[in-house]
């Protein structure tokens, strides 16, 4: 049995982790935006910056057969941007690859 009071505890441990995460409690927002005509854009905001987003976007582009890019945003950090409606695809792919849990994903849009 361990004595709880004597455990070493770093009070800043999760603080530093939290700042790395995102503005909002680790939720991954997946949004869709309409472009001209039938065209759409899918944005993925809030992926942990521990991951290399460039590699992620490279894998996504190959997997979904679409183009995409990483955009640096002063407030929201790095945001994935993929062409077309990839909401379903990206949700499945993120959970399958273990980058985000299903309850972390928040899909916006219609």
């Amino acid at each position, binding site marked *: 049995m361990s004595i709880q009071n004597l455990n070493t505890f770093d009070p800043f441990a999760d603080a530093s982790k939290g700042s790395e995460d995102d503005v909002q409690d680790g939720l991954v*927002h997946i*949004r869709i935006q*309409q472009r001209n005509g039938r065209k759409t854009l899918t*944005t993925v905001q809030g992926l942990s910056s521990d991951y290399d987003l460039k590699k992620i976007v490279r894998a996504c582009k190959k997997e979904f057969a679409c183009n995409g890019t990483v955009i640096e945003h002063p407030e929201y950090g790095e*945001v994935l941007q993929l062409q077309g409606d990839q909401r379903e695809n990206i949700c499945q792919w993120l959970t399958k690859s273990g980058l985000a849990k299903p309850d972390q994903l928040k899909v916006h*849009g*219609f």
Partner: protein
Amino acid sequence: MTEEDSIFDPTLKKKKKKKKTFDIDAALAEGDTVESAPSAADELFKDDVDDLDLDLKKKKKKKKTFNLDDLDNALPDKEEGEGEGGNQDDVAMDDNFDLELDFSKAKKKKKKKKDLDELMAEADDKQEDKENVERLPDEVDESSVQWMSSDRDYTYEELLNRVFEIMRDKNPDMVAGKKQKFVMKPPQVVRIGTKKTSFANFTEICKTLHRQPKHLLDFLLAELGTSGSVDGNSQLIIKGRFQQKQIENVLRRYIKEYVTCHTCRSPDTILQKDTRLFFLQCETCGSRCSVASIKSGFQAVTSKRAAIRAKTA
């Protein structure tokens, strides 16, 4: 019965003292609850009547707690709402439950009692419940009594099944979880030209939801990732092509987050702004929980960059 009474005498005495008012109430209400206590009318001694009343009440209480559990189970998506509510919520929920079922049974009358006492008495009631159930086989339903005759310990499942059986017997109308539907008009969505969409009955829907048009507007625009405004004849013009089905989806999400109570799912709620945070106050169960603020998040550039540059420069 008298013999058993003598065994449990001290506790019962205590009870009686504590809940004198209820006993009077109960005795008054006894006339119309004969069917739930068939033996009650036969008892002539005051003591015995009192005992029975107490027992009845306890049984009901037990049932009520299970009902609450049931309600809780029926709400998969109220995680946030529950933590802060605590005791108060529970009490409120009890009230709510009383109200909801009032029309179904006359015995409800007896259930109307002070919440404080109930809370105080809850702990020892739970222990006594079991004893009482065993002590009074005559007022127990015949359906699940295979273990009544024996002295063996009954399992939690058996007790639970029994409670649910009694519940179904007494309230046949609430068997299937009792969902009240929240019906509202479908949004009328019409395309204007090729690039804009009109949401014709926007203000009407705001009124049925009891929400500020601005709040719903903010949410819709943030979710759809576009811009738009309310025009002269109170219809909403959104930039982009949207179908009625898509708008319905977004509206459904809005209702789930900002209209229905996270604890009891009642649509009878008020949205208040308190120190920069929105709180959802339920009028039915009295729970109050914070809701997420509307954030549009990252917006990609979809228009012509040259046009933006021309505008800003």
